[in-house]
């Protein structure tokens, strides 16, 4: 019984930050059309900001979530305004944009390592209450993180598919010229998307920190899986990112149950490559 339900429960918890990050990453991919590797550092910085408020300044953990997420969003906007938008305006192609974002990622990651060192930070969440869910011990904070992640994802979903801004956003991503001709201001919507994506990434980092620890590599370790999820979930489809994200979390948890966690990553990456091969028809082959 436990081999069936354990991975489900564990996978659900493990998937919470993954899904958040995948949705945020997908928004940028959808809008700007390039793989933003530096998004991983957005996740890391969200977690570090929460470390500053929670561990260094001693704030209550719940109070740190909102300011950290907002600052992570502003950081994302800053990278967009200072680096990515000028680069796109200079006509840098999609592949070069990826390499550029790798450069950004290096810059931010090692800047963070300079500031915070290589130590592992744990959030000071006070004494958690322990629960048992389907035979697995979990803390109250993990439940709250999962609930908050779920709420955030639902809110994002409603925002994208049910509001005027969401509609403008989708219009802009779908056909830029037509959207502009219809009176949509691309600058404002772009800023908004980068902000929202940054907030989602920051939250992902914070929740990741609740489940384990914070160091300068958490974003980098997450980003490859996030990219895979986003590509597989059909580029830019928030629905796809949700489904694939939860699925990936459960697969990881399942393989982790059976073997070591590093094997889980290996299995997941091999699976992704195979699915990639089976589902994607090449642009070159069609052209």
């Amino acid at each position, binding site marked *: 019984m436990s081999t069936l339900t354990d991975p489900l429960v564990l996978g659900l918890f493990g998937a919470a930050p993954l899904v958040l990050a995948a949705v945020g990453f997908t928004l940028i991919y959808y809008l*700007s059309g390039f793989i933003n590797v530096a998004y991983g550092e957005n996740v890391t910085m969200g977690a570090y900001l929460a470390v500053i408020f929670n561990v260094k300044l001693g704030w209550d953990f719940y109070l740190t979530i909102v300011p950290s997420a907002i600052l992570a969003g502003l950081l994302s906007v800053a990278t967009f305004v200072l680096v990515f938008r000028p680069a796109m305006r200079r006509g840098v192609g999609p592949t070069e944009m990826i390499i550029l974002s790798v*450069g950004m990622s*290096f810059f931010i990651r090692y800047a963070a390592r*300079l500031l915070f060192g290589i130590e592992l930070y744990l959030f000071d969440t006070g004494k958690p209450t322990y629960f048992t869910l389907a035979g697995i011990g979990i803390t109250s904070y993990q439940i709250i993180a999962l609930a908050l992640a779920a709420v955030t994802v639902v809110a994002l979903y409603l925002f994208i598919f049910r509001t005027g801004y969401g509609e403008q956003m989708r219009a802009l991503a779908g056909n830029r010229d037509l959207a502009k001709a219809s009176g949509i201001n691309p600058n404002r919507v772009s800023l908004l998307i980068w902000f929202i994506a940054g907030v989602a990434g920051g939250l992902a980092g914070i929740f990741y920190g609740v489940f384990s620890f914070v160091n300068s590599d958490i974003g980098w370790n997450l980003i490859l899986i996030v990219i895979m999820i986003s590509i597989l979930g059909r580029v830019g489809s928030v629905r796809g990112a949700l489904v694939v994200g939860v699925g990936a979390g459960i697969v990881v948890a399942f393989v982790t149950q059976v073997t*070591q966690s*590093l094997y889980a990553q290996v299995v997941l990456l091999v699976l*992704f490559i195979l699915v990639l091969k089976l589902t994607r028809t090449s642009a070159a082959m069609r052209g």
Partner: protein
Amino acid sequence: MSYLIFVLSSMVVLIGLATLLHLQFGLTGIVNFGVAGFWGVGLYVFGILMVDLNLPFIVALLLATVIVGVVAFVIGWIVLDLDDQAVLVATLSFATIGFYLVTTEKWLTKGVVGFGTVPFPFDFGSSTELVFLLLLVTLTSLVVLYARRIRSQPFGRLLVGIRDNEGLARSLGKPTFRQKLVIFTVTSALMGFFGGMSASLNHFLVPYLLSPTITFAAWIALILGGKRHWAGGLVGVLVIGVIFDILIETYAPIPTTEAAQMIPNIKYMLYGLLLVLVIMFRPEGILGAHAPRRPRREKPNV
């Protein structure tokens, strides 16, 4: 002195990798983000063949190269007909898988404890390291010279044709997928070859060597030097290496040990910044394109 020779040897290996990357990306347009994987598999396979199986140096090296070539062939066969972003993610995944497996398969690689000791192939007393450096310089020069030559050969022109318009090249009857697979397999196998050489250079193998850092070092060097130019990797590595590895790490007056520990972080930070600045302000790198024409860029989409 021996530290300086080690740094120089590592730089020469990086020149080799960056030049091979030029053949893959600059010439053919294959976005290989798995350099650390091919290099690292060569590193470990060579080490295992030489230390555990006691094979002679040259046999172990050639066997490691062939094994990496087979791996590259399989990966290339799976991903090379996908689009750029899928190739990038798939090769990066391969390198990550290699990194994980080297860590977990302790029975073979000793895991994080480290695998050793891989000796030099020859012993010339105190000048062994210097002779090995010269050997590396010779091998890397061959790769660079080949990169220079291929551009004016039919095969090189075909690769450029594939890069610029694969559909057109195929419609002219060129077997584009097969040619991409050939160049990818051979160049990746040679990355494994340099991995084997690096095993002798490093003596002691740890999984950390397979972290993506070497992939990005090769990319940064190539982009900085000029991705379309045969000497792009050479110039990029020299600029980066002379500034960061030799001048700063060897000669800069470093006040305290705490400051010394910060140096690598500052170095990688500046690597990143350099990469951003080059792509934004001089996307063709220091040398620019070797060919007279410039490729058209796609329409920006902000």
